[in-house]
């Protein structure tokens, strides 16, 4: 296939693009894997221990042990905590009043006040959990009271973020590279005038399109392998289901994105516009797909938008296969949607791309 050979040859010469193909997944996986951490730890904390009793010191030590609060400062009065909170130096202020011991015994009064920077809801949520810390004089009591509700995290018991992020990241990285590179690949030829030459040759539209797409499918599959290996080596992200299932899902997803990229390329005139258009599609892919935020927590309209995006369905598939040991048969709808999306987008692209200039 002449067009494919030419495309591969050009790709090999285009060092920047080549670097992007391999550099982008590596950089993103490191970035997302290490930097984005939704399990909250080490919140900056200051303590105003006005009581300074045996019990209050023990309470502070317990607080530190949770690792949620990182006690940076000790101040004299509650008012100082407010100042620190306002300046943003701390997220949590622990105010222990003078009559702390008495308050602990008194069931009707709270013993400790947590001053929390509520501008970050995550912090507030964590602080609410701290309320459940037991405080009593009988600190040696081994047997802790069993809470009424017990939480048992399935699939990701250590609650490590990368385990959740990496399967989603595969979707994001594939969307980015597949869509951008196909859109740009066609538009570049139009900009350079190559397309005018090509459509004057006996090459058919179908040959031209498939010829340009094939190398990128291969690249997508290589990227997928790269992400899986890095995910395993650095973040210990498991693939519990079948790798074959994963690749089947990936091929459908890649096809959907390439078709979308081709469609974009038929709408725009310059490489710059192609980039803009793909970025326009990237934002919802990251935000609405369930990659960053739990899908069910989103407003209903956002959910509908998310359902349209192929990445939403792909992320469900990857998380299912990699983490829940699901097989493709468990999630037929997602697979069908990806296939249907590819066909629709491809048809639209083929209809818009004609071997004429007008």
């Amino acid at each position: 296939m002449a067009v494919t050979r030419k495309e591969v040859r050009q790709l090999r010469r285009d060092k920047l693009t080549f670097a992007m193909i391999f550099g982008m997944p590596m950089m993103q996986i490191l970035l997302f894997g290490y930097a984005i951490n939704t399990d909250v730890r080490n919140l900056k904390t200051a303590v105003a221990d006005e009581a300074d009793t045996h019990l209050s010191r023990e309470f502070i030590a317990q607080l530190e042990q949770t690792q949620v609060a990182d006690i940076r400062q000790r101040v004299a009065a509650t008012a100082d905590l407010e100042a620190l909170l306002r300046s943003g130096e701390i997220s949590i202020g622990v105010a222990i009043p003078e009559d702390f011991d008495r308050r602990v015994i008194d069931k009707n009064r709270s013993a400790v006040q947590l001053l929390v920077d509520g501008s970050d809801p995550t912090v507030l949520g964590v602080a609410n959990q701290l309320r459940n810390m037991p405080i009593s004089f009988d600190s040696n009591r081994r047997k802790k009271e069993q809470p009424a509700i017990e939480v048992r995290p399935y699939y990701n018991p250590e609650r490590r973020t990368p385990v959740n992020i990496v399967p989603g990241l595969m979707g994001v990285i594939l969307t980015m590279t597949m869509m951008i590179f196909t859109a740009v690949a066609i538009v570049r030829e139009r900009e350079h005038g190559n397309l005018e030459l090509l459509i004057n040759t006996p090459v058919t539209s179908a040959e031209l399109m498939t010829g340009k797409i094939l190398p990128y499918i291969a690249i997508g599959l290589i990227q997928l392998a790269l992400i899986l290996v890095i995910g395993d080596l650095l973040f210990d992200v498991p693939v519990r289901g079948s790798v074959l299932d994963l690749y089947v899902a990936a091929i459908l997803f890649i096809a959907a994105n390439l078709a979308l990229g081709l469609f974009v390329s038929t709408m725009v005139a310059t490489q710059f516009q192609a980039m803009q258009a793909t970025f326009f599609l990237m934002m919802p892919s990251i935000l609405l797909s369930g990659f960053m935020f739990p899908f069910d927590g989103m407003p209903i309209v956002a959910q509908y938008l998310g359902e349209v995006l192929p990445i939403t369905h792909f992320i469900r598939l990857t998380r299912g296969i990699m983490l829940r040991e699901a097989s493709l048969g468990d999630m037929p709808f997602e697979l069908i949607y990806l296939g249907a999306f590819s066909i629709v987008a491809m048809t639209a692209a083929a209809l818009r791309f004609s071997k004429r200039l007008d």
Partner: protein
Amino acid sequence: MKDDLAIRARGLSKHFGDLRAVDHLDLDVPKATIYGFLGPNGSGKSTTIRMLCGLLTPTEGVADVMGYRVPDQSKELKPKIGYMTQKFSLFGDMTVVENLQFIAEIYSYPKANRASRIDELLEKYDLIEKHKQFAGTMSGGERQRLALACAVLHHPDLLLLDEPTSAVDPQSRRDFWANLFRLAETGTTILVSTHYMDEAERCHKLAILDHGVKVADGSPQELQDSTGMNIVEVLADNPYRAQAVIHELAEVASVTQLGIRLRVLLPESFGDALEIVNRNLRMHNVAAKTRIARATLEDVFVAVTLKPQQLAA
């Protein structure tokens, strides 16, 4: 008779919105000739060429190219034509040989003969030394030789060249035309657009386009003989003053200054052009030598693009 024509177009028009890029163009291009499109930028040359190779759909009219109706049969036509775009459109990040190989592949040139055909083209178009160079780093003249080599690789019967020499030096242009003549001799029909008069002069036949309308056609000879204008060449010590004086004459269609000489065009219908010019120069005491000159293609061009307003006057 129709078989002698490589291109036959009737009433060919292309509108882009309100713009009539090409307006009812009739065209007869005999086989094995070099046919020129002469016209300024925006006169519809590229649009016409694109319609003829099926890249654009005509708004009106019909065109038969090498016996195929375009754009309906452009698929069948494609293997018969070679097309050189106005802008260099080969792949800058591939070498000369790689570009030729790619073109050979997409035209399904017989595998067995591919290598020898490419060697032959490298030789013919003086690209042997450059065969491993990236097309993007070559000079204008070299690129153009490569583009021509690619356009003729599959032995097309018709070659469409859209301003092929707009980016090359005069020597390269001469060489390029030598190549075109060689191709025409072997039976290839060549349609070439240009805005250079000296190139137009080399064509066997010529159509002059202006604002999408064909204003004249014929061989350069015929066109020069039938301008309907008398041309007076004026050699004056003070060409500026002479020009001002001559401009006052109602009969004058156009005055062009070439160095210290002026070329004055007067419609034949006004009679003795030399006398009209001389009389006016004497009246204003402008010393000048005058003589009747033979029309050049530039005069033809000026004459035909002026015609509508001037004939009405």
